[in-house]
């Protein structure tokens, strides 16, 4: 299989602080790839570098065999930011329509996609309301709908299920799995372990380093533990010990 996203020795530092240290990641096409790690571990910075919104200090990023950053590439990437970036004074419909027109969709396709995306996140009855009056969960869902609006080949979701109730979370995951079956590649960050369980590949991030990666099953067998949560704690602990030794 060809890799859709490839990071080679990516490091990033803000001033003297090293946020990412020599990250290597390979995401194969049609996979759900999970980045798990605590807040402040550098997940969002990593994601932004993959999208091209941030530049690595050293190293290379390739998406669909194209060097990032690249404007054309963004047409194939659906991005959902960690913080909802929505226009509060516009309605849901207007938000979707605005982002749809940034992707140069034809009128019919645009209409179709807006209806599809809104329906998917169960916002169809609320589309004419201003986002100002949305609940936190509704805003999250609208953000997801916007990420899907242009039917992108690659989805990059930064903590998509934060603040979403369990029922909707389930339906969102069902959709993610369905998108995968369509051959799309999905990169997702999370710190919820049962979500990590649903990924094909995982990379555990801690303090800007990948401390462990592989499929959930591999990770579990490697550490000889049943739950990923324990894997995470154990892997993190190991690193601490290493640090102390060195």
């Amino acid at each position, binding site marked *: 299989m060809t890799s859709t996203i490839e990071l080679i020795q990516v490091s990033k530092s803000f001033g003297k602080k090293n946020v990412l240290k020599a990250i290597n990641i390979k995401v194969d096409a049609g996979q759900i790839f999970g980045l798990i790690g605590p807040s402040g571990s550098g997940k969002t910075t990593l994601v932004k570098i993959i*999208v*091209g*919104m941030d*530049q690595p200090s050293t190293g290379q990023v390739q998406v669909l065999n194209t060097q990032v*950053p*690249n*404007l*054309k590439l*963004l*047409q194939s*990437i659906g*991005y959902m*930011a960690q*913080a*909802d*970036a*929505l*226009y*509060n*004074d*516009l309605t849901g419909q*207007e938000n979707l329509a*605005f*982002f749809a*027109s*940034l*992707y*140069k969709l034809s009128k019919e396709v645009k209409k179709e996609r807006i209806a599809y995306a809104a329906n998917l996140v169960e916002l169809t009855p609320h589309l004419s309301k201003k986002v100002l009056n949305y609940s936190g969960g509704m805003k999250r869902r609208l953000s997801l709908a916007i990420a899907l609006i242009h039917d992108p080949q690659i989805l990059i979701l930064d903590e998509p299920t934060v603040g979403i109730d369990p029922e909707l979370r389930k339906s969102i995951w069902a959709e993610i799995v369905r998108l995968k079956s369509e051959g799309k590649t999905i990169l997702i960050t999370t710190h919820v372990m049962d979500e990590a369980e649903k990924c094909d590949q995982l990379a555990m991030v801690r303090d800007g380093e990948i401390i462990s990666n592989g499929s959930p099953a591999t990770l579990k067998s490697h550490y000889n533990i049943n739950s990923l949560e324990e894997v995470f704690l154990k892997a993190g602990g190991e690193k601490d010990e290493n640090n102390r030794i060195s």
Partner: protein
Amino acid sequence: MRTIALVKRVCIQMVRDKRTLALMMVAPLVILTLLHFLISSDPNTPRLGVNGAEESLIDELKEKELKVIQFDQLKSPNQLIKVKDLDGVLQMEGDQLNLTLTNDDPSKAKLLQTKVMQAISTVNAKEQATNLAHFVEDIAQQQPNAPINLNQIKMPEMSTSYIYGNSETTFFDQLSPILVGFFVFFFVFLISGIGLLRERTTGTLDRLMATPIQRKDIVFGYLIGYGLFAIIQTIIVVFYATKVLDIMLIGSLWNVILINLALALVALLLGILLSAFANSEFQMMQFIPIAIVPQVFFAGILPFEGMPDWMQIVAKFMPMYYGGNALVDVMYKGFGLNDIKNELFVLLGFALIFIVLNIVALKKYRKI
């Protein structure tokens, strides 16, 4: 295409935000109206208390558009001024004239002083003339045969003509073109700057950068979106100033609109540029005393020639310097398009530089 989507969005947001729209369209009119009535209202006539002066002097003073109030008793002038709310007191003590001025309003005090001096010198001149006439008469009586020719010196007639304006011109007529331009500049700066700042702080600008939009699309989207409202504002302000407030407009109305549009363009671009260096609305406000207020000083309200050399150089970097001059040229002096084209070109030059700087400043959000 993407620019149009952005323009559409800016317009919807603007129309929804009724208060901001009202601020942009109505606030300049309110301020202009207030200033118009404040500055062009006639100053009230100075009140002068007089004690012990001759009748002729009092008559002369009354002719000088002064309110003369006579007092028979001599109290202390300070007391008198306070009690009777006077602007000055003139006392005759023997041959000595004493003028006490309140001087709470220096310009009024100067005016009063000048008028009193004029009245005194007129009275003196008249007395001199009478004395001379008597003297001539005496001599004529003593030496009846001697021919005496005394040429009476006639006061030359003086007529005043004006190159710009007329005798009715007030300070406001010269000031108002600058104010019209300044308010357009100020409100466009504020609203476009905060508009893009909101996009920065809510994270939507960051989010936009994850779409294939180009940086220049964003700058032009904002430019056109807010530009449309700036055009409407400019037209409202200019029409209101010239048609309702009846501010002196000798040149073409279209030239006035043209200059204001150029100013609005510069303000808009300066607003979105400076918003890159602000993290909140409060920080955006902090740019007003630094970037906006000094513009007024160089706009032509204070005489340019009197400035120190280094300030004259600073003025050349102020968009309002060119805008203010051009507006005074057209509205007050009646110059045509050909006379103001240099100013217009400089303003467009500012706009062009700001466009480039804006596109570069967005690199903070995405390198390409």
